[in-house]
């Protein structure tokens, strides 16, 4: 394929991508050689973390010379309770990383060659504004799409909506938690939301379906799981891999991959057949119980055994454990749940199980979270759009947010429908190459669009494809929107800069405002700086910027309904029937199964292993792999292989292998084999986020393999458009396959 847009390695600029060897980054001034320990007075500034979406609030400590030395949790914060996770603690590395994007870059053609030239902010912003104007004039503003994540994404969303585009999506939905939100909406009339309102602290039984708490370091949740262990709660973990959570569990159900729904249905069967469900709760709040009962009549543990390989006695025993603990039981909704394309239905089975056990709205189950609503800083109404993310995703009738892959598809002329062709992108705070599966689709789209802007702190893979790269400063160097947490009680947190932005980097709010003003949208950015916005908002809710700069976190009393349902309390759920819908009327109306069914999914062909992937506690995907502090803890991923499978393949521990998937796609880089009893013989496992292709990420370039690269077979959820990614199978190759004609594109291999 001839690529119009060549991948440019940012280091090709000679931007001084100095490699910092181990030990080279030493903070100055905090430590005297003659003393055994550091003694110094620090100044601290409030922040909330941007290393993952949990957004823990804490303090950034700065020494007398103005160096950021450490970050700690804020004791008053409901997300962290004063304890940051390794990524939050290691957030300092994001600031100190010399591989950071430093100046705006503009793609230039030099004969046949394409490269980035360093630009001034004025040049870069003018170019973006002129492209936004011309796209608007030619195709309408809707043709400029925004793919985003996190705090910078929010500022850009405001810019795009002001400009007239709601062609907006984020991988956090269709590549992550979308199905569970739709499933819980259909059942309880409410999203699960984030942080999940799981009352793990007070639970007696925690059931995890592939959810690897402890490896996914969602701070408050990990803390509460530890409390639950202290309290003697029963943990039941369903996972083909002995996850850390599984190792802490009373029951580890080493399930055959892709069969979870059969297990869930068998559990429902047992709980109904043995009359273990919460009869009063089900009678008062439930809808469609009889239909459910009929539906699962034949879904016995014996039926599920043949599918899941979990013994019937274990299925019965674990179902009874749950019922015994009810209502203080949590069948956890999970987080990254786009697995097999029937994920909303699996999420429905999880929700139904919680409904039967009466755990929704109960102590030790799910509480009703409450947050503080932050008033919007005044601006004119957003202009109407002719089409938007909703139009692009309309074949998935219950999608509740933009589907990234549909926006990407609509960027390819042959795939776009009804003239809704996306002509340009801004990508803010997400490395699409790693966060979206099916690289070929993304590359086709990138080659089709006229213009792409990337806003990021790091020279991520996606930055190499941009026409303009804007260097954002890190969260430790900027103000951002107020974090309003929905939790057991409402709380707000402030992020303020602890140091001036390094290099030529700028905060996203400033970038959005600058572009907005160049587009004549001053009325939407009617403030000098973000402090003004924050102070206005904070004063509206009984605080002020001055107060928040001192305390960082402010907690409020609940004003709405209580945390839990009281005994027999009348309660209307936000579903069609006002009840907890075991039988979903909404799914039925839209032509889907109103009750979840088990469907078999493809299994690995001979010689192939199912590719499973997950998190490591010290990394947030590709966002942190180059962070000096976190890279120091884990600098590459490994491929987990069961000893039996390794023996069959003749593979040794520590050996590097390349991967080939069912569609003959090869991994760009090799990955180190870790032979371990912690994984089933029919699957392999790797941590997501590694295998960076951008050379300017000096610590991590070429280290480990990218699971996303191997995920080319997508099983799309017909209900909400989630991209099921667990139906990919890989073969392990001991010889470098890239010496043949299938070698990856030359420009990605060379320095």
């Amino acid at each position: 394929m001839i690529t119009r847009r060549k991948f440019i390695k940012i280091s090709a600029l000679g931007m001084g991508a100095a490699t910092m060897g181990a030990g080279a980054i030493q903070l100055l001034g905090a430590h005297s050689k003659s003393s055994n320990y550091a003694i110094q007075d620090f100044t601290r500034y409030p922040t909330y973390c941007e290393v993952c979406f949990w957004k823990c609030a804490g303090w950034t400590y700065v020494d007398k010379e103005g160096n950021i030395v450490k970050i700690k949790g804020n004791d008053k914060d409901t997300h962290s309770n004063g304890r940051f996770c390794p990524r939050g603690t290691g957030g300092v590395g994001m600031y100190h990383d010399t591989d950071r994007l430093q100046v705006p870059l503009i793609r230039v053609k030099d004969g046949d060659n394409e490269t980035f030239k360093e630009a001034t902010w004025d040049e870069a912003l003018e170019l973006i504004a002129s492209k936004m104007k011309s796209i608007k004039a030619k195709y309408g503003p809707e043709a400029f799409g925004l793919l985003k994540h996190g705090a910078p994404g929010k500022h850009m969303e405001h810019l795009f909506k002001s400009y007239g585009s709601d062609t907006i999506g984020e991988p956090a939905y269709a590549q992550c938690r979308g199905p569970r939100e739709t499933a819980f909406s259909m059942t309880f009339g409410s999203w699960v939301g984030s942080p999940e309102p799981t009352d793990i602290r007070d639970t007696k039984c925690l059931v995890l379906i592939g959810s690897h708490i402890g490896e996914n370091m969602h701070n408050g949740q990990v803390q509460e799981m530890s409390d639950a262990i202290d309290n003697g709660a029963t943990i039941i973990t369903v996972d083909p891999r002995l996850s850390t959570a599984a190792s802490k569990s009373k029951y580890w159900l080493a399930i055959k991959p892709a069969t979870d729904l059969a297990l869930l249905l068998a559990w429902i069967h047992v709980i109904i057949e043995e009359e273990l469900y919460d009869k009063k709760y089900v009678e008062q709040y439930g809808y469609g119980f009889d239909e459910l009962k009929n539906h699962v009549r034949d879904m016995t543990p014996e039926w599920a055994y043949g599918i899941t390989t979990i013994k019937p006695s274990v299925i019965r025993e674990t179902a009874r454990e749950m019922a015994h603990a009810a209502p203080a039981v949590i069948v956890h909704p999970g987080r990254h749940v786009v697995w097999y394309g029937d994920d909303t239905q699996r999420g429905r089975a999880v929700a139904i199980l919680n409904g039967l056990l009466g755990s929704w709205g109960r102590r030790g189950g799910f509480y009703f979270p409450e947050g503080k609503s932050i008033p919007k800083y005044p601006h004119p109404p957003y202009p109407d759009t002719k089409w938007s993310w909703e139009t692009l995703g309309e074949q998935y009738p219950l999608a509740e947010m933009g589907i990234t892959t549909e926006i990407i598809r609509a960027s390819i002329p042959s795939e776009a429908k009804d003239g809704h062709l996306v002509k340009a992108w801004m990508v803010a705070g997400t490395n699409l190459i790693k966060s979206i599966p099916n690289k070929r689709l993304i590359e086709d789209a990138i080659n089709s669009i006229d213009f792409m802007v990337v806003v990021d702190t790091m020279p991520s893979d996606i930055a190499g494809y941009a026409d303009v790269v804007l260097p954002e400063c890190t969260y430790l160097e900027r103000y951002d929107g107020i974090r309003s947490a929905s939790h057991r009680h409402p709380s707000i947190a402030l992020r303020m800069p602890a140091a001036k932005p390094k290099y030529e980097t700028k905060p996203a709010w400033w970038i959005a405002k600058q572009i907005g003003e160049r587009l004549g949208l001053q009325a939407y950015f009617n403030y000098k700086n973000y402090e003004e916005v924050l102070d206005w908002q904070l004063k509206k809710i009984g605080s002020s910027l001055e107060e928040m700069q001192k305390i960082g976190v402010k907690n409020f009393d609940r004003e709405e309904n209580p945390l839990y349902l009281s005994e027999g309390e009348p309660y209307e759920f936000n579903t069609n029937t006002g009840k907890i819908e075991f039988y979903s009327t909404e799914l039925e109306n839209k032509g889907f199964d109103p009750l979840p069914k088990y469907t078999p999914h493809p299994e690995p062909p001979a010689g192939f292993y199912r590719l499973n992937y997950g998190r490591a506690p010290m990394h947030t995907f590709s966002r942190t792999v180059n962070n000096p502090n976190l890279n120091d803890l884990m600098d590459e991923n490994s491929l987990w292989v069961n000893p039996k499978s390794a023996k069959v393949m003749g593979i040794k521990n520590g050996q590097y292998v390349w991967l080939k998937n069912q569609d003959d796609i090869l991994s760009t880089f090799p990955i180190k084999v870790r032979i371990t009893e912690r994984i089933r013989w029919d699957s392999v496992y790797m941590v997501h986020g590694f295998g960076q292709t951008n050379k300017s990420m000096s610590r991590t370039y070429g280290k480990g393999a990218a699971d996303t690269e191997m995920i080319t077979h997508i099983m799309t959820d017909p209900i909400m458009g989630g991209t099921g990614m667990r139906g990919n199978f890989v073969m392990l190759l001991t010889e470098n396959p890239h010496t043949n004609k299938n070698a990856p594109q030359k420009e990605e291999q060379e320095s």
Partner: protein
Amino acid sequence: MRYAMVIDTLKCVGCSDCVVACQTENNVPVGYCRDWVTESVGGTYPSVEIELRSERCNHCSNAPCVRCCPTGASHIVEGGIVLVTHDECIGCGACIESCPYDARYTHPDGYVDKCTFCMHRVEKGQKPACVAVCPTKCMYFGDLDDANSEVSQLLKKREHKVLAPEAGTQPNVFYLI
């Protein structure tokens, strides 16, 4: 006064937050560490068990590193904390060789460095950085001479072990199992 650390392996998830918190608290250069996490796996699928342990200097009551130090840089202070006076350390490495826990390393500036139980924090009534940060609250710190301290109580109630007991070092880091 006998300071000790008690670590609950049943709660530790091996996240390595203790490592980063120590590095940023004590200005340990990236690439080096005063504490680290180990994982041991036993059994055969699907009867598999793992133990995760946050490890560091055991501040031994019978410390071979102190005995073998030729300059007296390695010494024991009140509360049984083993320290290294950087200025007196000649970097000979005898202590590194003698430590059964591999708890010491040579700092790029030439001296030997290791865990201090965050004495600068302990003196101010704070917990060591690793204990204070741990999201699972699996680490406890206190005085074993005080029978009512959290650490004494935990060791009284729970099954526990020390590392390399055969070395006879009388370590003061305990693992609940």
